[in-house]
């Protein structure tokens, strides 16, 4: 069965011309508008001029870029070797018990974000565990940091550290910029759960209801496991 479609028979010069025009126009549109709108890459400046570059969401850093940004000025790029940091003061320790309802609850209480405020170069150590989740795949977290847009800039910054499932996580963080850093937590199990978070270091708690603690979590208030 020959079901080859009948096609046009465009003469060679016309064909070459059409292909060239298509390729050139496509490239112009991509360079002038798509790149600024999608990736904040704006070689012609048209993206900023027309405002399409505002579409490209917050600037997302990778963890390695964030590490480079957190390194003291003048330090080599591989600043992982830096072993000591000094601060004028402001050391603190807190424990934060974060309650989450079972998955699919009417109040959507199974998910929330909890973050603390940090200055650039500030460090913290954290450790959290959950109580009642039997299957580690049923607890999802997203460890990240963000800064709201500065006035007149229109764009915030986001740094993504880890998106994973698991019932515990322990580690340290050096803040690459001033902003809030912490976790999006999501209970996918059928039981309510309390996350027991311990933090120490150089940071400030975000007051209940403010940017980074919209859920209104109170620190240093013990909650019983459900």
């Amino acid at each position, binding site marked *: 069965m020959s*079901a*080859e*479609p*009948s*096609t*046009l*028979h*465009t*003469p*060679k010069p*016309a*064909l*070459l011309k*059409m*292909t060239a*025009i*298509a*390729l050139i*126009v*496509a*490239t112009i*549109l*991509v360079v002038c*508008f*798509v*790149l600024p*709108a*999608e*990736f904040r*890459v704006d070689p012609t400046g048209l993206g900023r001029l027309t405002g399409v570059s505002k*579409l490209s969401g917050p600037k997302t850093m*990778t*963890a*390695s870029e964030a590490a480079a940004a957190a390194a003291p000025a003048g330090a080599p790029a591989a600043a992982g070797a830096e072993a000591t940091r000094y601060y004028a003061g402001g050391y603190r320790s807190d424990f934060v018990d974060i309650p989450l309802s079972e*998955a699919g609850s009417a109040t959507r209480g199974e998910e929330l974000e909890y973050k603390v405020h940090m200055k650039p170069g500030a460090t913290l150590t954290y450790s959290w565990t959950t109580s009642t989740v039997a299957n580690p*795949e049923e607890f*999802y977290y997203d460890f990240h940091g963000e800064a709201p847009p500065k006035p007149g800039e229109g764009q915030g910054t986001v740094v993504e550290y880890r998106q994973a499932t698991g019932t515990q996580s322990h580690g340290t963080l050096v803040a690459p910029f001033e902003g809030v850093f912490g976790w999006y937590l*999501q209970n*996918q199990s059928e039981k309510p759960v309390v996350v027991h978070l311990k933090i120490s270091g150089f940071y400030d708690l975000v007051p209940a209801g403010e940017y980074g603690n919209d859920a209104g979590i109170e620190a240093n208030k013990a909650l019983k496991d459900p």
Partner: protein
Amino acid sequence: MAPSTMRTHEKTVVSRSIAAVLLFVCCLGVSLVADAHGIAGKDAEFVAKNQGVQVFPFLYLGAKHMVTGYDHLLFILGVIFFLYRLSHVALYVTLFSIGHSVTLLSGVLAHIHVNPYLVDAVIGLSVVYKALDNLGAFQTLFGWQPNTKIAVLAFGLVHGFGLATKLQDLNPSKEGLVANMVSFNVGVEIGQLIALTVMLAVILNWRKSTGFTRHAALANTLIMLAGFMLVEYQLAGYFLTRTG
């Protein structure tokens, strides 16, 4: 298509093509914003959160993905452009469906994860290929006609990898995975059928109009342009967002 007949209509063709380009760019712009990378926003949240068998939501997501997926639609438009018999339309669409179903299902089940930007770049290439094919480019430039059925099947496989990779990125729960994937796949076919019906209705009427051949050349050039844009956009995404 004699040069003299081309010239008489040149003015209207030029103004029409400008209008068409503008309309197309607007549509593409809107859809790029609305649907930058497959399944987005609320829908992604739904997929990430919901456990167990969810037949109708996944049917809907599959259909929506197809109806709003301009890359798949452009390719299908290119494929059916010069198919004059309904049985041929059915044959090619079936080949495309078999292709993308095979890779969608096996890709998800085997956890095959291909970089979505690269997959989408190849999907853009498939659009360019079909537009060039419709213009008779392979015969004219290389004196060789690639087998369209094999090409459609092969690009169908690539489109399916795109679907599989996107669904895996959303991290759907293991519980009910097979049923949900099959639902999504059936939804994709339903969406494709809806889109196909609309495109066929338009193109059948279009063919009756005088000057269809000329418009066809222009339309396929525009499809090619869109394909080039997709390729460049996705390659830019690949190189600009690579981490370390």
